[in-house]
């Protein structure tokens, strides 16, 4: 268990040492929609390869819609949205945001083509549109598999995106965030499938709901308990309440996925609970990071402990 911060922990008028992220709600929302898109593309590819057409269509349409929303959210959150294309000037492996930009650009293109493939039959049979209608289904299949190939990166890089900052409760969580976010992505996509797909095709979604939510809940438990002082922001305040809400919703969603084998209604309710759990968890983690950046003790206390353990590194210190 973590110790409370020493009461003598000094600060400059209680002001934060580091700056909290200036992002609005768009970014935690994007953490959810980006994960949903990735999970849905994986479900669609699995459905495509195992002959589940409704599940495939659900996955492809969800992936395209969610990645479209993600791109809108990311651009709207820029201080200068008209300069969004400056993100495409460089490719920098030291910037998770740069890596994410390229992944989401490629994924967005592929999942757009895959979703378009689902609507090829609505095109007229003749003329240039007819040719398009013939080409789209095979192109959609290739694009859907390509999107699924990029999806694991899209589902997990956001953990690095948050961790690669000075925000104490995010940075120290770096070993845990990618897997947690990957699980949350699978659980949310499975949630949509449980709502939209017929029972006959939903078995993989049910299993994925269980596996994904298990990863998500194991991850949040670790954040709450294993980061010493830096677990506090995950337990207290709004972040703590959201994380607990996510746990209850996630457990309900898992139960519904097991019990909903024969009932569309139970399956759909389970899907709603899984989606809500994923949203609550993303916002909880975001808010815990902001809380840990705002209170200087979360920056100062662990650094002092680290420095004191190491001993004075220079004759001028201490």
């Amino acid at each position, binding site marked *: 268990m973590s110790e409370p911060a020493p009461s003598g922990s000094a600060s400059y008028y209680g002001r*934060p040492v580091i700056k909290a992220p200036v992002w609005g709600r768009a970014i935690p929302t994007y953490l959810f929609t980006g994960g949903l898109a990735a999970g849905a593309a994986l479900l669609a590819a699995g459905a495509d390869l195992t002959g589940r057409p409704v599940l495939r269509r659900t996955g492809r349409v969800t992936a395209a819609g969610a990645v479209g929303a993600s791109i809108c959210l990311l651009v709207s959150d820029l*201080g200068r949205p008209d300069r969004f294309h400056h993100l495409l000037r460089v490719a920098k492996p*030291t910037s998770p945001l740069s890596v994410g930009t390229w992944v989401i650009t490629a994924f967005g293109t592929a999942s757009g083509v895959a979703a378009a493939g689902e609507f090829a039959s609505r095109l007229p049979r003749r003329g240039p549109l007819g040719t398009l209608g013939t080409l789209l289904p095979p192109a959609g299949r290739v694009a859907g598999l390509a999107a699924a190939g990029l999806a694991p990166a899209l589902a997990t890089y956001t953990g690095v995106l948050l961790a690669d900052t000075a925000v104490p409760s995010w940075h120290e969580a770096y070993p845990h965030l990618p897997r947690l976010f990957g699980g949350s992505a699978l659980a949310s996509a499975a949630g949509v499938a449980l709502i939209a797909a017929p029972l006959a095709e939903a078995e993989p979604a049910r299993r994925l709901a269980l596996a994904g939510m298990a990863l998500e809940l194991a991850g949040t438990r670790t954040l709450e308990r294993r980061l010493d002082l830096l677990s506090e922001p995950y337990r207290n305040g709004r972040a703590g309440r959201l994380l607990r809400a996510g746990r209850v919703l996630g457990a309900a969603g898992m139960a519904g996925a097991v019990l909903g084998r024969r009932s569309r209604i139970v399956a759909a309710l389970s899907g709603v609970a899984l989606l809500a759990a994923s949203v609550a968890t993303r916002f909880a983690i975001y808010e815990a990071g902001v809380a840990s950046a705002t209170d200087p003790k979360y920056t100062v206390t662990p*650094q002092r402990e680290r420095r004191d353990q190491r001993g004075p590194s220079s004759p001028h210190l201490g």
Partner: protein
Amino acid sequence: MDGTTSLSGPLDPAPDAGYPDPPPRMGFFTDTSVCIGCKACEVACKEWNEVPATGLDLLGTSFDNTGALTANSWRHVAFVEQRRPDFRWLMMSDVCKHCTHAACLDVCPTGALFRTEFGTVVIQEDICNGCGYCIPACPYGVVDQREGDGRAWKCTLCYDRVGVGKTPACAQACPTESIQFGPLDELRERAERRIERLHSDGVPEARLYGHDPGDGVGGDGAFFLLLDEPEVYGLPPDPVVTTRDLPRMWRRAGLAALTVVAAVAAAFAGCSSPGRRS
């Protein structure tokens, strides 16, 4: 400690950034023991760099009505009132540290942040699109988004002035030479001599901050002489550049991605195909 890589450890940043024959690394040595809290540095910086006003703030924190380094304050004079047992004021002009390993620069996704030939770190205002990633990446809380503008701003170490052989505005305006500008090697030697002098004069609490190339950011281009613990001035006691751990973070993400693939494969593998069900 980790060995030297482009992400951590001691090195000379300008050659590491690709300048084949750069001038000496330039920086600030801010000696807080002679700071008189006149804020001439804050004013000179605003004047020269055309940094917008923040309005009239009365913060109730001693003589500090600036509060912190922000998008609109690139120098910030901190005032600490102490009774120990005699009353004393600590005054310290804070500034961007121009780290050897600058997290803001590492994480910038547009290339707006760059390393100059003098080893300093500058944001190009015509490139920055206000993504805001540099802001929580900075271990010192220096970079900030300007309201109504959307972009990130911070000290440039007067790149325009230094480029033509001039002293940065804050150091030029400082009446007590609390802010000293020059080649970093010279400043470090000068700081060592100043510490020895203060210690022999009976000021044992004097210590250097940010001068050590072996620290978590590879040493600061702008370092300080302090008279108390760093956190008393609002500085982090043991800052580490977040990207030092980035290779490990990408490895964890790779493992997580494999876990995701395995979970999907397992979910489909065990199910009988609906079309082929007997």
